[in-house]
C-alpha cells in the first residue's frame, strides 16, 4: 500500500473536520435560539474530536503531533475543501452547509468503516455513530424551516444555490484517488457523490426547497491541493494566536 496516498486521504478528512468544527464553534453566543448555540457547539466538539482521531492516525504514519499539524501549518498546506472555510455568515448558510456537508460525511465514514486499512475502519465505525445525530439535526431543521415562512424558504433557497457549488467541491478527486480505491481503502468520490445526491434530494423533496441541477454547476475545486479562499489563512492565524506565543510550552 502507498502510504502517501493514504496520508492524502487522511489529511482531506481531518482538515475538513477541523476547519468546520472551528467554524461551527463560532456560533457561541450568536445562535437564533439558545438551543442552536448548544447544538452547534456539540457538533463543533464532535468534529474537533474527529479531526484529532484522524491526525492521530497520521501521527502513527510518521506525521508530526496532532497539535503541531493542526496549529502550525499555513493555508496552502491544508487539504480541506473550500466549503468548510467560508465564514459562518447567517444561520441559513450555516444550516445549509451543515446539511450538505454532514450528508456527505456520514456516507464517507460508513464506507470507510469497511476500509481495508483497519485503523481507519475502526475510527470510522465510531465516528459514523456520532454523525448520525448531526444528520438528524440537519434534517429536522431543514424540514421544519424549509416548509415554513416565505422569508425562511427564500433565505434557505438562496443559501442552497450559493453553497451547492462549494459542496460539490467535497468530491474533488486527488491524484491518490485510483490508488486508494484499488487498495480497498475507500470506495471513491464518485460513489459517495451519487448516494449523497439521492439522500439530500429525499429530504429536500419534503420541503418547499428545490435542489439546483448539479450537472449545470461548476464545482469549486482546489481545496484538496492547497488552493483556498481568502478566509482560511485568517482563520488559521486566529486559531494559532496563543499556541504560537510559545509552541514548545505546555498550555
Amino acid at each position, binding site marked *: 500500500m502507498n502510504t502517501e496516498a493514504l496520508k492524502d486521504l487522511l489529511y482531506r478528512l481531518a482538515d475538513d473536520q477541523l476547519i468546520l468544527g472551528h467554524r461551527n464553534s463560532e456560533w457561541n453566543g450568536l445562535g437564533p435560539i*439558545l438551543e442552536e448555540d448548544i447544538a452547534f457547539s456539540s457538533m463543533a466538539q464532535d468534529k474537533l474530536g474527529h479531526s484529532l482521531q484522524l491526525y492521530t492516525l497520521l501521527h502513527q504514519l510518521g506525521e508530526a503531533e496532532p497539535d503541531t499539524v493542526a496549529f502550525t501549518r499555513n493555508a496552502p498546506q491544508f487539504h480541506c475543501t473550500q466549503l468548510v472555510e467560508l465564514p459562518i455568515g447567517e444561520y441559513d448558510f450555516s444550516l445549509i452547509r451543515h446539511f450538505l456537508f454532514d450528508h456527505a460525511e456520514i456516507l464517507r465514514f460508513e464506507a470507510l468503516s469497511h476500509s481495508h486499512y483497519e485503523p481507519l475502519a475502526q475510527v470510522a465505525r465510531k465516528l459514523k455513530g456520532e454523525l448520525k445525530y448531526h444528520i438528524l439535526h440537519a434534517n429536522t431543521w431543514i424540514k421544519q424551516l424549509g416548509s415554513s415562512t416565505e422569508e425562511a424558504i427564500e433565505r434557505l433557497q438562496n443559501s442552497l444555490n450559493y453553497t451547492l457549488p462549494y459542496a460539490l467541491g467535497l468530491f474533488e478527486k486527488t491524484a491518490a484517488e485510483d490508488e486508494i480505491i484499488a487498495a480497498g481503502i475507500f470506495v471513491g468520490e464518485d460513489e459517495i457523490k451519487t448516494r449523497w445526491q439521492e439522500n439530500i434530494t429525499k429530504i429536500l423533496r419534503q420541503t418547499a426547497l428545490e435542489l439546483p441541477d448539479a450537472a449545470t454547476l461548476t464545482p469549486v475545486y482546489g481545496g484538496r491541493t492547497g488552493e483556498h479562499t481568502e478566509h482560511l489563512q485568517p482563520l488559521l492565524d486566529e486559531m494559532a494566536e496563543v499556541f504560537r506565543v510559545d509552541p514548545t510550552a505546555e498550555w
Partner: protein
Amino acid sequence: MYGSASTHDIPASAATGLENEDPILLAEFEARIARGEKIEPRDWMPALYRKQLIRMIEQHAHSEIIGSLPEGTWITRAPGFRRKMAQMAKVQDEVGHAQLLYSAAETLGKTREQMLSDLINGKSKYSNVFNYPALTWADSNVISWLIDAGAIVNQMANAKGSYGPYCRALERICAEESFHLKYGHDAVVHLATGTPTQRRMIQEALNRWWPPIMTFFGPSDKMSVHTEILMRWKVKMASNDHCRQQFLDMYVPKIWELGLTVPDAKLRKNEDGVWEFTEPDWEDFKRVINGDGPCNAERLAVRRAAEENGAWVRRALLSPKAKYVKPLA
C-alpha cells in the same frame, strides 16, 4: 456563573404590597418555608416573592449567556486540541445553564422572549463582572477558575433556597460549575508553572481581574439595603460579605500556593479568621453596573445582533405552515 449584584435587594423605601396579601395564605406560605418545604410553580405565593424570584433567576440566566461571551471569544484561539475542546464544552455549559434558568423563570410567568427583550433594552441586569474584557487567554483561565469558583459559593447557598425549580436547576448547574473550576484551575496551574511568558500572562490577568472578583458578591452588607424579608423567604440565602469571606478563605491560599500574588497590599487573614482587604471601589461598581463599564455596550450589542439576526428563524418556527418534525423520527 453568577454573583450577587445587589440588584435583587428590595429598596428599603419600596412598597412591599404585603398588606394586600391574604394574611392566612401568607402565614401558611411562611410556615411552609420555615419548615424547609419547597414552593412549587402552582403553589400560592405572594406577588413580591414571585417578582423577586423572576428578577433573580432572570438575572442569573442573563449572566450565563452574557458570561459565555468573554470566554467564548477564546474558543477559536485556545492553544491546542485539549484546551480548544474543553473551552468549547465549558462555554457550551454556560449557555445550557441559561436555557435551564430561563425555563425555571418561565414557571413564574415571564416568557423567555420577554426576558431577552428586557436584557437587550437594558431593563434587566446581569452579573457586573462580565462588563470587563478578557484580554488574553490567561484572563479567560482566570474567569474559568475564580469567577466560576465565586459562582459556586453563591449558588451552593442559593440551592438551599425555597423555590423548587430554581433549587433543582442550581443543583445541576453547581455540578457542572465544579467541573469548570477544575478545568480553570488546571489551565491556571499550567500557566503559573510554565515559561516566564506564561507566568507573566497569568499574573497580569489576575491583577486585572482581582478588583472585579472582589465586587462579584455585591456591595458590603454595611451598605446593602434591607434584605430581611428575602432572607426569611429563603430567596437570598447568604449575605454578600459572608460569600466574599468564604471565597477568600477557599481561594486566596490556592492562589498563593501557585506563587502568584494578589494585587491588594492589605489582604490578610486576621487571627479571628476574618479576611481583611482593601474595600472595593463601590462607586465605580455602580458606574459600571449602570452601563458605563468597558464592555457593557459591546456585550449587549452582540446579544442584540444575535436576536435580530435570528428573528426570522423564530418567526418561521411559530409559522402555522411549519411542519412539526420529530427530531428523532
